[in-house]
């Protein structure tokens, strides 16, 4: 089996432990015909803004972009659910010919009147970028009329990749920040950036922080509210997870409001604990530090025995992962190690060179690091490394399953909280449930391997 499928992509794959030093090419346009697992600029914007639950999210374009993103993410809201709808201008041929501005204007009026949102995000799509609708002008007009922020998100699909969409989303959110009052915000306060409240994960982190005496001002990208975003500049600190998506917002807030930020991960035992310690350190409050230590030791005391029981079965199993952003992968490698497992493939859609370098650093020798992969490459490495479980999203699932390999959904569609200490237990159980399922012994690949072994 050819290791390198697409010659043009050979510099986007790195195997750790080779003689040559680390080197990877990334953040490139996907190779035509390679069946990239990546989506587009629009996708990047939509995913970041998605959890703002009391805003109207109107997609200006033909119906597909809106239809494919209708309620596809597990970002929970404790209140309004407006974000779960799919709003579109459903552009038709005549709109493409004569322009869609009037339609957009009327659609905005109609939807704002119906739903009374706290703000509206208007997403541009490929076609809008081509026909040249002045979305910004329409948004200004409706904003003035309706008295709520109406914010254009410039997310034409072809103008870059998903990272460009993150940036557009950050710029859109920046428009809200600074508009609200900041009275009464505790000096021990943070915003949560880059956490999407999948399966209620934000609530777990919030609970930890509150137990430490830290106020969460805005779940910027998780259980988000327009009013919270507007006063987010009043928080003392930004906690940034999933660097790719919200780093730009953190940098803007640092620039504009002087809000410092910490990069954190809530995945896995070590990183979760470190995040809490870092927050306590930041605020320099010994009582808070003590609370953090108490919290961590209480949680670990409950968690470890269960993890160790699961580890007995998982010891020596091999994992692969292909995720949206590379940052998550660092934590997952550690989480798998805690379970006695080895990560043999780690890839991402949108990693940066620094991400991959760090990934290579923390990986075991022989680990494949891949940028912007595709089914054929993934299949090759999954088989070559005889992987037991593949961590990815919906698009990666059938690749694993077709090969008879376990799977763990670690993407935005997940329904199981994987962050925090309880999330680590869920993760371990999830990995255990898939790796240890009896179904594998009936799969063609395993049966063939068993036959080989017997012969």
């Amino acid at each position, binding site marked *: 089996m050819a290791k390198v*499928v*697409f010659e043009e992509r050979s510099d986007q794959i790195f195997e750790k432990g080779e003689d040559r030093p680390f080197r990877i090419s990334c953040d490139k*346009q*996907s*190779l*035509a*015909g*390679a*069946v990239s*697992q*990546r*989506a*587009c*600029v629009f*996708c990047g914007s939509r995913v970041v803004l998605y959890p703002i639950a009391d805003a109207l999210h*109107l997609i200006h374009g*033909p*119906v*597909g*972009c*809106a*239809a*494919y*993103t*209708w309620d*596809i993410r597990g970002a929970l809201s404790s209140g309004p659910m407006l974000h779960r*709808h*799919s709003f*579109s*201008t459903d*552009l*038709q041929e005549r*709109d*493409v010919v004569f322009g869609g501005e009037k339609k957009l204007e*009327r*659609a*905005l009026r*109609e*939807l704002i009147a119906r739903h009374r949102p706290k703000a509206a995000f208007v997403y541009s799509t*490929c*076609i809008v*970028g*081509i026909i040249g609708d002045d979305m910004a002008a329409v948004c200004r007009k409706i904003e003035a009329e309706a008295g709520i922020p109406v914010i254009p998100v410039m997310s034409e*699909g*072809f*103008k870059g*990749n998903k990272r460009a969409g993150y940036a557009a989303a950050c710029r859109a959110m920046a428009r809200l920040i600074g508009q609200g009052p900041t009275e009464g915000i505790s000096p021990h306060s943070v915003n949560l950036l880059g956490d999407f409240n999948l399966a209620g994960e934000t609530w777990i982190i919030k609970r930890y922080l509150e137990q430490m005496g830290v106020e969460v001002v805005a779940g910027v990208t998780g259980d988000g509210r327009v009013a919270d975003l507007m006063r987010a500049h009043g928080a003392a600190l930004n906690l940034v997870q999933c660097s790719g998506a919200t780093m730009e917002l953190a940098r803007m807030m640092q620039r504009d409001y002087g809000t410092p930020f910490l990069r954190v991960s809530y995945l896995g035992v070590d990183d979760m604990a470190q995040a809490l310690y870092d927050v306590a350190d930041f605020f320099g409050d010994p009582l808070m530090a003590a609370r953090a230590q108490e919290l961590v030791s209480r949680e670990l005391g409950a968690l470890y025995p269960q993890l160790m029981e699961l580890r007995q079965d998982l010891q020596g199993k091999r994992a692969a992962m292909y995720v949206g952003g590379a940052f998550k992968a660092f934590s997952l490698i550690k989480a798998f190690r805690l379970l006695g497992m080895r990560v043999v493939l780690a890839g991402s859609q949108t990693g940066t060179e620094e991400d991959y370098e760090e990934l290579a650093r923390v990986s075991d020798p022989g680990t494949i690091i891949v940028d912007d992969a595709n*089914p*054929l490459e993934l*299949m090759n490495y999954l088989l070559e490394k005889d992987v037991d479980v593949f961590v990815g999203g919906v*698009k990666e*699932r*059938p690749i694993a399953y*077709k*090969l*008879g390999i376990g799977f763990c959904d670690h993407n935005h569609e997940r329904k199981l909280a994987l962050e925090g200490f309880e999330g680590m237990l869920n993760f371990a159980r999830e990995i255990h449930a898939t790796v240890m399922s009896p179904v594998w012994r009936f*799969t*063609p*690949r395993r049966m*063939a391997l068993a036959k080989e072994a017997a012969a």
Partner: protein
Amino acid sequence: MTREITSPDYVSTTNACKLCMPLGACLAFKGVEGAAPFLHGSQGCATYMRRYLISHFREPVDIASSSLGENQAIFGGGPNLKKGLVNVINKYGAKVVGIATTCLTETIGDDVPGLVREFLAEAKVETPDGQMPALITVPTPAYGGSHVDGFHAAVLAMVSQLAQPTPAHGGVNLLPGFVSPADLRRLATVTRAYGLRAALAPDYSRTLDAPAMATYEALPAGGVSLNQLRAMGGAKATIELGHCLPGRSAGSWLEMYLNVPLRSLGLPMGVRACDALHQALRELSGRDTPEEIELERGRLIDAMIDGHKYLSGKTAVIYGDEDMVVGVAGWLAELGVRPALCATGGKSGRFPAAIAEVTEGLVRQPARAVDGVDFQQIGEMARQIGPDILVGNSKGYRLARELGVPLVRVGFPIHDRFGGQRLLCLDYQGSQELLDRIINAILAHDQDRHHWGYGYL
């Protein structure tokens, strides 16, 4: 009793009851042997559609893309299209590439057929047999119609670009429309039972419902073959299923250009529609209906009788793709269920007439048929009706939940249940399964809601 149900006309679309054209085209191309679907446009389109199709079929759905960026949008997507074709042919081993455009490439004005001609002339690819793959092109701008229009456009493209004048070979062409893999298998079995050789186009029954494999098949086995498509002109007839096809359908093309007699039928759901299919098969084969199928029919009638009291006078809201809604509506009408609302996001123009036709003589009040609507409108109308049951794809779940009535899932997409690709709806057996599912949904709902919880129903 007769309330007028109003459906306001909105400018905005909320929770569309349709998808975009390229998705339908990709699906159709998955039904051609050795074919890779290819979207000429931005990378996101292919990925979104893959994800969407995977959620229903739970199978790998590899769709290539020319992955256009900003430069290509300005200077033309030709080079990327060609590079992508090279990769998909060389790496995927595609023997057929089904190239569908997107709104982006339609709007920037790429001449895809011209680019394909250039590509073939340049012949940059090497294939094991030295044969250039067949390249099928279809224009599918998202703003030009729904996924179903894209599907039919792709079927027309594959037939009209491949079928040639062919000596009569005694087979039939069977154009099933957008049905499930299980439905496709059923149609193949039924046709075979009459001794007819059928070219089933498209046939993704195996590519999108494949067995577990020891390795990843870049292009899964199965599908209508190039040879079958090429020889369609020699068939003794084309059976084309669907009331709501475009005027220029693949079947009508075969009739007009290759003189293949066309038999247009609805989806075989319910007794009348299934009988019509079997009547056609009897006529085309010169054989009687095999006993096993006659017995299936007899058992279906028996089940209609056994079940009629659970259904008489019940009210249904049916939604989804036009022909699936038409099929369900006709079947429910035969069972005494009132299809109070038949709704679709499609807009073939034939939907209201088709609903009227299949329910004719069976309903007291004409079934209300509305096309071009979204779930906002469907919800508003459904709330006025207060139906006993919803029948449609997964997209109506929240409405069903709000109304507190059961939803029987049929059609596409089904992504909140397991085995949507295995749902059989067609022919006597499929009608039977749908009937059982509908009655059981009603029984379960009543039983669970009832304080007493009757044990015998």
